[in-house]
C-alpha cells in the first residue's frame, strides 16, 4: 500500500507539469504497522521469537547449521513456496563447506573480524541475494513471499535469498479471447511471467513497469505498465493516484482493482478493458494506454477503455482491412440484433402490427393464436430461459456441456412451440438474439448488452416503439455521460476530427492510421514515418516499381 503512494508521489515529482495538489493521504496508513521491532544479537532469542510468532505456520522450516563449521546460524523458509533444491545446493551446501584456503582456516578471528553476511553473500551462497534488514516486519514479509532467511548468531540482522518457486501452469491459448490469426500465448497467474510476455514483445527501454503492492493482507504485487514518451503522464499519474487510494484486505483478481478504479461504479458498462492476451496489451500500450497487472490474475486491465474497444479483436489488425471492416460491421449488426430485436418484435406484435405485410401479419396472428401470454411476457420467459441455459452451460462439466446445450436449444424451443407456450417466431427471435450477443468479443460488454435488452423488452411491452426509443435514448445518454479515466466513453465516435472513424466502424489500413488516438493526448502521436500514407495511396494507382521510382525522386 505504501508502495503505490510512494510511486505516485515519485511520479508526480518526475512530471511536475501538472498542478500538484498536496497528497494528504500519505499519512495515517503508517499507524497500521505497529512499532518496528528489531532483531537481537542472540540467534536463539531470534529463533524463539520467530517460532512464537509463527506457531501456526506449519510449513515453516528452521534449519540450523554451522557456517563453515564454526558459527551457528539458522535458515528459515517455507516449504510450500521455496525451491528446496536451490536451498540445499545453493545455500546450505556452500555454507557448510569448509574454508578453501589453509590460511583462512588458520585465521581464527577472521569470522569475528569481517562482516559475515558480506562474506557469505559474496563468496559462498549461489542463490540470488534478497535483502538485508534488521526489522522484524520486513523479514517476516520476505519470508512469507518465499525467500529464505539467514540469521547468524551474534548479528542483530538477517539476510534473505530469493528462493521463491511457485507452481504455475504453462502458457496456454487464452480461453476467453480466441482469435483466428494471432499469437497463441495468453497471460497466466504469475506476474513475472506476464511481464516477461510483455517485455518480450516490447523490447524497448521506454517500457516502464512500476510495481507495488495492493491489499493489506494479500500484498498482491501489482504492476503498472506504460511506455514512457507515449503515454500521457497525466493519465499515468491518475492511474497511480487511483491505485494508491485502494484500501482493502485482499486483491484476489484484477476485477477487484477494476471496481475500485473505475469512474462510474453504477453502470452496466465496463469502463476498463480486461484482456488475457499479451499482444493486445502491447498494442494498447503502443497506443498510449496504461496496463495494470496483478499477481494471481491472468487478466490485464487496460485504461482508458472506450466503448468501441470492446468490439475489436486483435486479429482485426492482422487481417486484410476490407475484411476486417466488414467483420466489424457484422459485429455491429449482431450487437444491434441482440439489443433491439426482442423489444422491436414485442412492440410490432403488440402495438404496431401494421408494419408487417398483411399476409404475414395474418399468418403471425395464426401462429400466436394459442399462446396464452402477451408478447412481452412470452418473450421475457423465452429470453430468461435462454439466459438460464447459457449460464448453466458455463457451469456444466465440459463433457456434457456441449451435448446439453444443443439438446436444450432444440428440445426446449420445439417443445415450447408445440406446447403452445410460445409462437415459432418468438423462438426464432430469441435464438437470433442469443447468437448475436456472442459475436461481441468482450464478454463483459456482451453481457451488459444482453442484460439491457430486458428493460427494453419491458419498455416495449408498456409503450411499444415509443418505449423502445425512450429506453434506448436513456441507455445511449448514459453511455454519452460515461467517462473512462477522463475520456468520454464514446469519444472515438464523437472525436472532433472524424479521424475517430478510422478505427471504429471501419478498420482503416495500417498505413492510413498514422496517428495515435487523439483522445489519449499522447506525447508522441505519430506512429509511422512521414509520407507512408501517400506512398501507399500511390501504390493503388501505380504499379509497385513505378511508385518506388517516384518516391525516390521526391
Amino acid at each position: 500500500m505504501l508502495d503505490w503512494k510512494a510511486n505516485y508521489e515519485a511520479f508526480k515529482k518526475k512530471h511536475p507539469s501538472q498542478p500538484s495538489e498536496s497528497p494528504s493521504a500519505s499519512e495515517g496508513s503508517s499507524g497500521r504497522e505497529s512499532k518496528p521491532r528489531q532483531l537481537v544479537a542472540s540467534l536463539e532469542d531470534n529463533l524463539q521469537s520467530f517460532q512464537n510468532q509463527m506457531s501456526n505456520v506449519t510449513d515453516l522450516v528452521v534449519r540450523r547449521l554451522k557456517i563453515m563449521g564454526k558459527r551457528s546460524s539458522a535458515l528459515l523458509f517455507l516449504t510450500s513456496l521455496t525451491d528446496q533444491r536451490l536451498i540445499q545446493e545453493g545455500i546450505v551446501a556452500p555454507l557448510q563447506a569448509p574454508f578453501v584456503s589453509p590460511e583462512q582456516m588458520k585465521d581464527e578471528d577472521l569470522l569475528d573480524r569481517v562482516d559475515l553476511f558480506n562474506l557469505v553473500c559474496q563468496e559462498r551462497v549461489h542463490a540470488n541475494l534478497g535483502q538485508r534488514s534488521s526489522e522484524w516486519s520486513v523479514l517476516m514479509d520476505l519470508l512469507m513471499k518465499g525467500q529464505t532467511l539467514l540469521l547468524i548468531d551474534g548479528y542483530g540482522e538477517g539476510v534473505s535469498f530469493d528462493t521463491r518457486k511457485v507452481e504455475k501452469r504453462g502458457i496456454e491459448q487464452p480461453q476467453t479471447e480466441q482469435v483466428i490469426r494471432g499469437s497463441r500465448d495468453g497471460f497466466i497467474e504469475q506476474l513475472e511471467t506476464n511481464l516477461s510476455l510483455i517485455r518480450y514483445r516490447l523490447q524497448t527501454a521506454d517500457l516502464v513497469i512500476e510495481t507495488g503492492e495492493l491489499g493489506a493482507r494479500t500484498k498482491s504485487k501489482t504492476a503498472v505498465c506504460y511506455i514512457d514518451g507515449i503515454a500521457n503522464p497525466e493519465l499515468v499519474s491518475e492511474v497511480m493516484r487511483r491505485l494508491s487510494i485502494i484500501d482493502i484486505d485482499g486483491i484476489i483478481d484484477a476485477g477487484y482493482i477494476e471496481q475500485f478504479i473505475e469512474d462510474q461504479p453504477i453502470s452496466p458498462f465496463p469502463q476498463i478493458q480486461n484482456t488475457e492476451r499479451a499482444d493486445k496489451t502491447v498494442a494498447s500500450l503502443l497506443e498510449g494506454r496504461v496496463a495494470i497487472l496483478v499477481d494471481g490474475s491472468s487478466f490485464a486491465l487496460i485504461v482508458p477503455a472506450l466503448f468501441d474497444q470492446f468490439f475489436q479483436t486483435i486479429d482485426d489488425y492482422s487481417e486484410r482491412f476490407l475484411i476486417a471492416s466488414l467483420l466489424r460491421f457484422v459485429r455491429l449488426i449482431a450487437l444491434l440484433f441482440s439489443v433491439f430485436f426482442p423489444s422491436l418484435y414485442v412492440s410490432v406484435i403488440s402495438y404496431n402490427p401494421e408494419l408487417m405485410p398483411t399476409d404475414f401479419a395474418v399468418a403471425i396472428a395464426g401462429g400466436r393464436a394459442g399462446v396464452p401470454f402477451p408478447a412481452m411476457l412470452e418473450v421475457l420467459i423465452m429470453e430468461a430461459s435462454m439466459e438460464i441455459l447459457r449460464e448453466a452451460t458455463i457451469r456444466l462439466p465440459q463433457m456434457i456441456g456441449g451435448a446439453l446445450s444443443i439438446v436444450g436449444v432444440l428440445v426446449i424451443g420445439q417443445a415450447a412451440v408445440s406446447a403452445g407456450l410460445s409462437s415459432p417466431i418468438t423462438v426464432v427471435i430469441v435464438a437470433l438474439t442469443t447468437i448475436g450477443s456472442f459475436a461481441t468479443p468482450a464478454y463483459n460488454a456482451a453481457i451488459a448488452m444482453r442484460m439491457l435488452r430486458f428493460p427494453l423488452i419491458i419498455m416495449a411491452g408498456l409503450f411499444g416503439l415509443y418505449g423502445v426509443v425512450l429506453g434506448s435514448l436513456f441507455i445511449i445518454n448514459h453511455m454519452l455521460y460515461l467517462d473512462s479515466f477522463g475520456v468520454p466513453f464514446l469519444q472515438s465516435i464523437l472525436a472532433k476530427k472524424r479521424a475517430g472513424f478510422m478505427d471504429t466502424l471501419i478498420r482503416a489500413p495500417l498505413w492510413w492510421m498514422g496517428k495515435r488516438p487523439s483522445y489519449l493526448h499522447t506525447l508522441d502521436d505519430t506512429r509511422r514515418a512521414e509520407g507512408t500514407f501517400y506512398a501507399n495511396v500511390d501504390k493503388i494507382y501505380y504499379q509497385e516499381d513505378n511508385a518506388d521510382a517516384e518516391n525516390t525522386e521526391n
Partner: protein
Amino acid sequence: MQKTQKISTTQLAIVISSTIFGPYVLSFPQIIAKAADNAAPLMTIAGTCCAIFSMFVFTRISQRFSDKTLFSYSQIVIGRLPALVANLLVFACFFITSAMMFRQFGEVLSTVVFRRTPIEISILMILILVALSCRRDTVKFTYVHLFYWPFVILPFLFVIMMSMKAVHFLNWLPPFGNETPHWLPALLSPASLYLGSFIITILLPITEKPARAMKAALFGIVVSASLYLLLVLSTIGIYGVRETLQLLYPTLEMARSIAIGGDVIERMDALFIIMWVINVYTTMFSTYFLTSLSLSHLLQFKDHRLVTTLLIPFMFGVSLLPQDQYQLYKFSRIADGSGYLFLTGYALLLWIVAVVRRKGVRPHG
C-alpha cells in the same frame, strides 16, 4: 485529470442544426402552405434569411464576450436590473415554447400512435427523460447532440428520397403562388422555426475558436434550412397545396405513402414517428437546457441541476393548459413568433448598446 473540454467549430454547427431541426417538421409544410400557398418554398427561404440575420446578431454579440454566456454579459452591457428583466423574459420565452412543444409532441402521439394512452403519460415520459439528461454540463450537452445528429437528419432524408419519385413538378408552379401570401405569418412561421439557434449564446464560451463561430452558425442553419426546404418542396411537390392544406401532418403522410422492398413494407409512419421522437428529444433537450440555465442564473444558483428537477412539474402543468388542438396551435404560433421577435430584438439591443458603450472585445474576422 478532468480538463474543461472545448468543442470544435463543426461540433457547434451540428448542435445548432440538430437544435433547430425540431418537432415542427411534421406540421411545418401545412403551416407554410396555408400562409404562402404555392410560394411556400420561396417563403421558407425568406424566413430562413430572417433567421440567419438573428443568428448573425446572436453570434456577434456573443463573440464580443467570448468567455461569458448571455446571462452574464447582459448584466455588463445594460446593467443589472434591466438585464434581470430581460433574462426573465428569455426564460419565459423558452419556458412557454418548450412547454408548447411538449404538448404538441403529446398531441401527435395521441393522434397517431397512442390513441388510448393518456396524453399526460406520453408527455411526462419524454419530459422526465429530457430533464434527467439536462443534469450535465454543456460539453456533455453537445455530445448528446453530436451522437443523435445522424438519427435526426437521416430518416428525413430517407423519406424525402423515397418519395421523390412521386413529385409532380407542376405542383411547384407557379413559384410566386396563385394567391397572395400573408406576409407576416409567411415570414414569421419559418423564421421562428430557428428559435433554438439562440443556444449559441451559451455554447460560445466553450467553443475552441469563438472567432469562427459565425461560420459554424451559418453552416448549422443552412443544413437544417435546406432540410426544411426539401421537406416543403417534396410535400408540396407530392400533394400539391390544396391537399397539403387538408393534412395535419404532411410529413407524416409522406412517410405513410412510401413503400419499400417491392411494396412489401408499408406504413413507415410508425417507424418515422419513432425517429421523430429522437428529433423532438434533441430540440427539447436544447430548449429545456436553455430554460433551466436561464432560471438558475436568475435565481443565482451555481448548479442548474436542482432547477431541472424543479421545472418538471411546472413544465408539465403549462403543457396541459391548452384545451384543444386548435387552441394549442394558435397559442404556440403566437408564442414562437413573439419569442422570435423578442429574442432578436433583445440581442440586437445588446449588440448596439455594447458597440456604443464599447463593452467587450471587437471580434476580428
